[in-house]
């Protein structure tokens, strides 16, 4: 089973890259890859529960994230350093996550067969 990590470092609704990467993650899971998500930088805002993209005419990212465990994507990681910078209350996250420092992220990445990102 190939391992794929999707690194999300862009905020929701700035462009379509986050939703499009989540689509890729779901397809990879359907193709029997072991998929994990890593949220870092501005990407953390995607995890907030109180989102509503209806006025934008888009899908709400937090709702898409809620569907991830249905696709067997339940390994969801958050950069611990970013969390401290952003001062986000983790009770507001839509899913249970695991916090990783930079060294642990590097270890996890080195175990992957492929890493995909939302871009810079």
């Amino acid at each position, binding site marked *: 089973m190939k391992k794929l990590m999707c690194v999300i470092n862009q905020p929701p609704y700035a462009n379509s890259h986050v939703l499009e990467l989540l689509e890729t993650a779901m397809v990879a899971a359907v*193709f029997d890859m072991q998929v994990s998500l890593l949220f870092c930088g501005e990407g953390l805002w995607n995890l907030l529960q109180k989102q509503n993209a209806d006025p934008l005419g888009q899908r709400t990212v937090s709702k898409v994230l809620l569907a991830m465990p249905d696709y067997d994507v339940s390994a969801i990681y958050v950069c611990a350093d970013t969390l401290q910078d952003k001062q986000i209350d983790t009770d507001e996250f839509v899913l249970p996550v695991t916090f990783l420092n930079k060294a642990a992220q590097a270890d996890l990445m080195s175990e992957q067969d492929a890493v995909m990102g*939302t871009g810079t």
Partner: protein
Amino acid sequence: MIFTVAVHGAPYASFASHHALGFCESLLSQGHQLHRVFFYHEAVLTGLNARVVPQGEENIVQRWLDLKQEHTVELAICIANALKRGVINESEQARYSKPAATLLSEFELVGLGQLIEAVAQSDRYVEFPA
């Protein structure tokens, strides 16, 4: 080694295509294999058939076509990303009753499954963000 390359940036708006081409040409010249080039996000615009390149500017799309011809590389465009950006082939033109097909015939419209299949078949997956 077998490589799959993904491009995320539109030609002329981003240097993603330029960097990806250099990388692809280099890996092929060193005897590696290129399984598939996958154009995602705004990079689907690479496949547009109506582009007029200003004099003195590089014809980046022609370089992709040359690469395909020389090395039989598959140039794959994400169909979901392409349709919503107006990049359609003749069968999609007919399906949605649009006035013209806008995709160069050298490019193929494929699903995301083709990206995942390519990643699974390759030793290395390299992405060129916008």
